[in-house]
């Protein structure tokens, strides 16, 4: 994914999740940019699939 703050591109699976230890139910599951620490919510699977389809269609 691409960080919305600094536009660094990183692998979502390798990125740190920031929610450990806070009181929220199930944690906030935000994904932290490894470069600037800006947090973004993870893209839902269906949107990822849709994007992939869209990209394929473009080619």
């Amino acid at each position, binding site marked *: 994914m691409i960080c919305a*703050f*600094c536009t660094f*591109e990183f692998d979502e699976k390798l990125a740190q999740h*920031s929610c450990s230890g*806070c009181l929220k139910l199930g944690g906030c599951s935000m994904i932290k940019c490894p470069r600037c*620490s800006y947090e973004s919510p993870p893209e*839902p699977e269906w949107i990822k699939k849709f994007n992939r389809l869209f990209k394929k269609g473009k080619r």
Partner: protein
Amino acid sequence: MNTPAEASNNEARDLKKVFLVGSPNVGKSAIFNALTGSYVTVSNYPGTTVDISSGKMKIGRHHQFKIVDTPGMYSLKPITQEENVGRKLIFKERPDCILHVVDAKNLERMLPLTLQLIETGLPVILVLNLYDELLARGMQLHIAHLEHDLGIPVVETVAIRSLGIDNLSSRIVEVMENRYRFNTVELKYSDEIEENVAKISGLIKKDYSISKKTLASLIIQNDKDVLDMVKGEGDFDKIKALSDNTVSSQVRYKISHERQEKARDIITEHLVVDETRKRGVWRERLSQLMVHPIFGLPILALVLWFGLYKFVGEFGAGTMVNFIETNIFENIINPKVDIVFHSIFGDNMFFDLFAGEYGIITLGVRYAIAIIFPIVATFFIAFSVIEDTGYLPRLAMLVDRVFKKIGLSGRAVIPLTLGFGCDTMATIVTRTLETKRERIIATFLLSLAIPCSAQLGVLLGLMAGNPKMLFIWALTIIAVFLITGFLAKRLVKGEDTGFFMEMPPLRLPSLMNVFTKTYTRMIWYFKEVIPIFIMASVAIWFGKLTGIFDFLVRVISYPVTWAGMPEGASPAFLYGFFRRDFGAAGLFDLTKKGILDGNGLLVSAVVLTLFVPCVAQFAVMWKERGKGMAIGMALFIFPFAFFVGFLVNIILNALGVQL
């Protein structure tokens, strides 16, 4: 005798090495594919999950090289695991030639890494990829002059169309055969840095195949890996002492800044812009205005006016909330819920749990769906648009100067901006700030003066019809933010920090991006908010049954009336303990019922904005900053919020202002 596999490995080992280096999205892989064809192997770097692609490159009949595609990196001072692996490869494998692949149209952003690579003393070729996009923007580079000034080969390519690849291949051969005379530019840092770099360089005696200047400049930035590299030096203790004696964060800032300045000078000299086709230049000018200390402010005011006030305040919290609240909940859902639950439970206490004034559906769900939903939806749309344009890093640069006065740096824009989404999450993010002082001040300001999205939206909606009231509220909160921050800086000891970041290009927001971000944030928000609102409704129901609720309302009514608000406003502040937005929604209800007049509403809005952090945020403050700090902050904030409300009320009365 060697097996064919061993022979192939030996051959690969003996080949001269070409490394591809560069940040993500510059077409490094396209260059790699164009140079290697299909001879590619992919393996993990030992001990990591980072993929490294390598292959063979054949040029004519006589030349064969090993080519390695290193992970994306922005700097030789690594932050991410990928950058760390990339640097290890360069430092340990000693490439015979480095191809620094850059996006030609964003050369200014990427040239600092070229300067760093040149400084290592390794042979570097600058590859200006995506050159067609630069031309399409009406720009052109004096390549020969650029090559002359940098003292390294410079090649323009469009890798996906294989343009410039032949030229690049012949330049690689030229370098490999030592036919190219490198006459590299030397970046002179400021005197203080040069002095320390020279001292450390003088103490490094062994050969590391990387220039001593590079090693020394990383050591004064307190780079642990590089310090480990030179551990075997006889004067290691002296090197370590020099590293410890520098304020690494300030040095890092200065070095990055000086490199960026040098890059800007080079670009200014060699970039030619066609004035008739200056689409890119227009963006660049706007970008410069956005970070300008004077012109940046009206731009910020415009962003806040249209993004927050008009769209979130007037449209979201005004039009949409009125429609859903009045037309759907008040006229349809709530009366039906009352009838249904009355028919089931009659007038007993379980009726009050689900329906009536404080029921789970009539209060908790109504607050979440009718008040909070339209507000956070519009807020997240506005926020996603702002985020997607690339405005936030410019905002960080704009406020950096002001933030320094309150003990923070532009980097604090990240947690403070996230605080407008959710203060609890933002409090966790403060751990990324460099110094303890910054972390303490940012935590304090988040819990005092940064309203969360829904709270802000409700307050904007309440005051949207009265710009004078909104202006006084904003002025009060900004004054509290700056004055308390200024005092906190004097109270909390610690060093000042510098801030510098590469500016990503400004861009038009993409509809798909805005939709995705808004949707995912809404889902995240509602997963969190609905259970808490329901729990709060149950807690209020239980409190009313036992009399605790009325007792607490009575207790809180003392500071409420003292600050000049009507006693009826007290329940909203009690709700605020559960969540700030729950309290704000309570205020919305009170205003609708006519309990608050103009002045009362302003004072309530001020107090509720500054009011104690919600339960979740308080718990995170406790965890992140320790119990003493968390309790201390809460004990200060609670009376302080009412005190500010009291002052606002006194001033309004003294001036005879009636809103």
